């Protein structure tokens, strides 16, 4: 075996290992997916069954019981809305902190994160009262607003790290080329940090999509997102695992598919070979 083959073998082995790890980590989700096609009895069978007669009854029941698309649409609007709004706020902030660093930068960053430290259970009532007075209860606007706020610190932090990786000469070059701050951001910074931004967007989408405390407590019916749908299938009296699996599958399918589609953006081979 030559070394070249050795290297190839090594790549194959590493690939195999990566697959193994990925499949292990994915297994619970796979199992959930599998369970969603079982009957409730099969779902709880001992030993757990890998092979069974698949049934669509869970999905049919969900379809019959709930207007999936109503919830899904709310989720889409709310999470994309808040992500968009969040990015609009976070990118300039991160830009300013990464490239015009002052003595306050570090403490500002920290402070931003500290706004997330108040546990939701501790502020439920104040927020509920505020929302009630503002007429935001059970509105998508309200959810967009609150998600933007709770995810903003994280988005700023993430975008900040990705911006920090970029050699500042590249921006200086853009500045000399006559780019305004906005052009600098949109024409140079964003394309370069596309991978990082995609991660940030995805993360924000996921966090908003899955957020289950505020979405359940601040909505009733018209603005209820998929978390509410899931909550209507989790832990009722009686066997529910298959149905829960089905509804969870449905609930995370859109975002999972979105993640799938965007994975190319997530990791874009980028080298700053243009500076030395």
């Amino acid at each position, binding site marked *: 075996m030559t070394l070249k083959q050795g290297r190839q073998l090594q*790549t194959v082995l*590493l*690939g195999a290992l*990566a697959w193994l*790890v*990925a*499949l292990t*980590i*994915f297994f*619970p989700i796979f*199992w*959930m997916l599998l369970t969603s096609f079982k009957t409730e009895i099969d779902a*709880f*069978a*001992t*030993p*757990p069954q890998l092979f069974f007669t698949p049934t669509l009854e869970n999905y049919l029941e969900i379809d019959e019981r709930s207007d999936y698309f109503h919830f899904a649409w709310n989720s889409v609007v709310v999470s994309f809305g808040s992500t968009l709004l969040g990015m609009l*706020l976070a990118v*300039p*902030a991160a830009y*300013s902190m990464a*490239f*015009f660093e002052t003595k306050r930068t*570090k403490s*500002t960053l920290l402070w931003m*994160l*500290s*706004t997330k*430290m*108040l*546990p939701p*259970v501790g502020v439920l*009532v*104040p927020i509920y009262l505020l929302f009630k007075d503002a007429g935001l209860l059970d509105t998508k606007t309200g959810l967009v607003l609150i998600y933007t706020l709770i995810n*903003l610190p*994280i988005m700023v*932090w*993430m975008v900040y790290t*990705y911006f*920090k*990786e970029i050699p500042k000469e590249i921006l200086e070059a853009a500045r000399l080329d006559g780019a305004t701050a906005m052009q600098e951001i949109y024409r140079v910074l964003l394309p370069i940090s596309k991978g*990082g931004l995609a*991660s940030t967007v*995805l*993360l924000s989408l996921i966090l908003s999509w899955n957020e*289950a405390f505020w979405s359940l407590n601040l909505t009733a019916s018209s603005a209820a997102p998929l978390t509410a749908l*899931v909550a209507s299938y*989790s832990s009722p009296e009686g066997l529910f*695992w298959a149905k*829960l699996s089905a509804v*969870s599958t449905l*609930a995370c399918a859109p975002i*999972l598919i979105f*993640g*799938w589609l965007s*994975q190319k953006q*997530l*990791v874009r081979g*980028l*080298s700053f070979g243009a500076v030395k």
Partner: protein
Amino acid sequence: MSTSSLPAEGTTHASATSTSVHEERKRQSRLSLAMVSPSVLVLLAWMAVPLAMTLYFSLIRYNLLYPGDNEFVGLENFTFFLTDEGFTAGMTNTLLLVCSVLLISVVVGVLIAVLVDTPFWGRGIVRVLLISPFFIMPTVSALVWKNLLLHPVSGVFAAVWRFFGAEPIDWFSTYPMEAIILIVSWQWVPFAVLLLMTAMQSLDQEQKDAARLDGAGPIAIFWHITLPHLARPIAVVVMIETIFLLSIFAEIFTTTGGGPGYETTNLAYLIYSQALLQFDVGLASAGGLVAVVLANVAAIILIRMIGKNLTDKA
């Protein structure tokens, strides 16, 4: 200063020169301020208003189920919360949970990020598989783990144990905290992977080449090149996860309900069972504030430890 020779130029620039030498610099800093301030202002409002209300509520008796009985009670809510029997356990468990999950997600996250940085067949799919646990809602993942995987009778783990002839483990009564840590880590490792995976790309290939020539094997490269490069993203993972982990609730609520005993009661759950269950807003506020203080302490300690990585430019 004479501008007479070139009136046209002179007049156009006169204002710029005469008003202020540092006009431009100020404009610059104003611009950068203008860029941060929207975020800062909304967050300030978002923090200040509830915080003020919380502060106020924490000083009065305020139970939703006893309306009208809102007298000022001073620090009673705080004393009550802090003297709770479960408080020490809550603190320790919070710490234990946060630290273990942090450790696991950073270590595993870094390893995975490095692993998937080399090209191999189906890397795109592997990436999505790896981050997918993050797509699952916390309650759901807790339920799936509890009932479908870790259940001592019908769970997949039990089946595996039995397959190898071992006695299935009753996770939630024998190793309740470990089980929670397992579940929470499963959800948060992908977060670390996502962040670090992206950060890996900006690692200059030539640096690795240089290190290879310097005789660094894969491990040395990892240790001396990759890891320092990942310092900042790791710092960010640590900070962000800490904030989330400090308030882990759904996973505990759905699996162990904080038990057995105080084994899995963390601060967030303590606030829930102490205050929110009986809608004692005053007490919940006090608990919330205690949590804020603790989170801040944790954050400050963390910043001390990792802060340099945060703003340092490599």
